[in-house]
């Protein structure tokens, strides 16, 4: 947050809560690093870790031969990372993040090598990765490390779920979890585990969006595979209906205290939108998450969600589940409905400033 805005807020809190000078300084120092800096640092740590893993698997073997030696090296790296996390400095945290990722990667590689696993059988490494990241998530570490661990846990679970209807249900579960956590942010913000809950909320949001984009083909186009026609229809239906229901639930929850007429007209408009946009469930998901993160006052996600929607439209263009003409009609009609709704909104909903 900018200096002027932060000072305004601190002055206001001083009046409202009678803050002492110590707490004022703590709050000023406690502002988190911006999300883009965290993303850049995470990327750099991941890059370093992948190089270190390659280095460990190569010439380091002369020093630490065999799976036991490499496993031990991985464990030592994790312990070193945990030790560094106890030193509350950005420099130590960045090194610790890279060491932790290297350690986790090494341990998983050792397991995969020991079991002689193929690339298409990643269940055992996924279980280990989920366990390791889950344990590390609950140990004291940095904001960025907690987020990476939460992401690894949820992504490993996706690997375990596999594909088909299970994956569609998992995507829905993730999206519902993200929406529920954001909608209830005020309630858990002061919980002792709030840092971890926040990491899970961010990871669930990111992964549900990533799965909607990367698994779009698997979730909506398996109809092309004639041998699995019945199962594929289920996958597609579960995903599309599920996302529609999720948006309706979010809207219903947000409107719960409104007057009856406003409640039902809001829900009615959402039903129309869900029906129109059902061939593009990624857009429905973005809208549901957008409403939830706005309720949570999360401006970073508010900025990232439109970027995801633009990327999703790019994927949708090449998707084969419906024709371009069909997609075009869906967009034009949905666009018109939204445009008319937007033009009528100030007349229908008058708010005193």
């Amino acid at each position, binding site marked *: 947050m900018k200096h002027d805005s932060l000072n305004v*807020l601190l002055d206001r809190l001083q009046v409202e809560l009678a803050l002492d000078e110590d707490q004022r300084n703590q709050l000023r120092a406690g502002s988190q690093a911006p999300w883009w800096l965290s993303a850049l640092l995470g990327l750099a740590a991941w890059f*370093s870790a992948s190089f270190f893993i390659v*280095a460990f698997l*190569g010439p380091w073997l002369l020093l630490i031969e065999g799976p036991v030696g490499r496993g031990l090296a991985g464990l030592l790296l994790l312990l070193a990372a945990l030790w560094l996390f106890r030193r509350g400095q950005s420099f130590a945290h960045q090194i610790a993040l890279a060491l932790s990722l290297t350690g986790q990667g090494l341990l998983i590689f050792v397991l995969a090598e020991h079991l002689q696993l193929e690339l298409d059988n990643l269940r055992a490494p996924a279980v280990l990765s989920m366990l390791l990241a889950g344990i590390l998530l609950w140990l004291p570490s940095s904001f960025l490390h907690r987020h990476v661990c939460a992401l690894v846990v949820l992504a490993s679970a996706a690997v375990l779920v596999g594909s088909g209807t299970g994956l569609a249900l998992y995507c829905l579960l993730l999206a519902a979890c993200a929406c529920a956590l954001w909608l209830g942010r005020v309630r858990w913000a002061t919980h002792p585990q709030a840092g971890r809950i926040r990491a899970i909320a961010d990871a669930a949001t990111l992964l549900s969006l990533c799965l909607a984009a990367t698994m779009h083909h698997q979730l909506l186009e398996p109809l092309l595979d004639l041998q699995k026609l019945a199962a594929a229809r289920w996958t597609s239906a579960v995903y599309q209906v599920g996302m529609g229901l999720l948006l309706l639930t979010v809207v219903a929850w947000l409107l719960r205290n409104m007057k009856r007429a406003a409640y039902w007209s809001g829900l009615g408009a959402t039903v129309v939108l869900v029906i129109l946009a059902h061939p593009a469930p990624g857009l429905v998901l973005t809208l549901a998450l957008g409403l939830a993160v706005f309720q949570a006052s999360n*401006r970073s996600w508010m900025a990232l969600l439109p970027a995801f929607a633009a990327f999703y439209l790019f994927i949708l263009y090449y998707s084969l589940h419906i024709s371009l003409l069909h997609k075009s009609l869906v967009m034009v009609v949905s666009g018109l409905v939204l445009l008319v709704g*937007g033009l009528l*909104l100030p007349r229908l909903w008058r*708010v005193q400033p």
Partner: protein
Amino acid sequence: MTRSLKHNEQILAWAEEGLMTPGQMADLEAQQALIPGPLQWRTLLERVTVTTGALLFAIGVIFFFAWNWAEMHRFAKFALGLGALTGFALLAVFALPGSVLYRAALLACCLITGAVLALIGQTYQTGADAWQLFAIWALLMLPWACPSGSAACWGLAWAVGNFAGVLFFVQNHWQGLFAGLHGHQALMLLAAGNGVVVLVFELFDRALLVKPTRALQRLAGLGVLTALGVGAAGGWWEAEYLPVLLTFGLVAAATLFFYLQRRRDLPILAMTLFWLIVVGACALARLTWEADQTFLMINAVALFVLLGSALSAVWLTRLSREMQT
């Protein structure tokens, strides 16, 4: 007085870090809820519905022309495309200048201009290269972007222009066809184009944008650094790219000075530092590659990236704190 979204977000982030007690949060909540108020909700819904509506409609038009309906006469297609363009232009004329509707309508005009251009290419088979189509589209967006004062319109023009630049670079890198330009010259042109955008928005952002933000300067800064950074990284491996490496060094030094001393901008400083790390890592990789030391190369590069990013994190965090005091 209603709390802004920014303030709510900061308070909740402090609470999550354990810097606010449950009692203090309860007191704040009792005075005013830590969620957006009705006015904030209405503003959001108005923006989302109008902007998304205009965008979806315009993208729908693009998808429709991409479908290339053979049975539809070309004049009918032109009537449809130009009709949509005229419709949104009229919507902008009757909307309040600077309003959400006004900016959304002009953004739709920007998109539909591209659809009409593609339709011309599709109908008359002009034989233009893909980069030429995108470059013309970016240019034709300027008359819509100028009056709009919308960062989204300018951002779209920037993105399309850069996409044209990348396609131009790829073509020139492999074939050197257009005006005898080679890959490194194409990269310099791309960087120069982005540099002009940075300069224009640093000088005239208040005139070009209804609500001045630093988004365009940062995007174009990313364009300059990426074009030069890619060339500079290649400069360690191919002599042809050495001029780009030298230019990158100069531009990085100038950027660090200007955005640290004159107009402090953390995202641009961070991008510069991270591109310096990338180019430095490439230099290390080249040096150790020549010495045929794969083990040394992998570890040295990893260590360099790690230490570089950690030191950058410390410095950027310190700058961020300085800016808040």
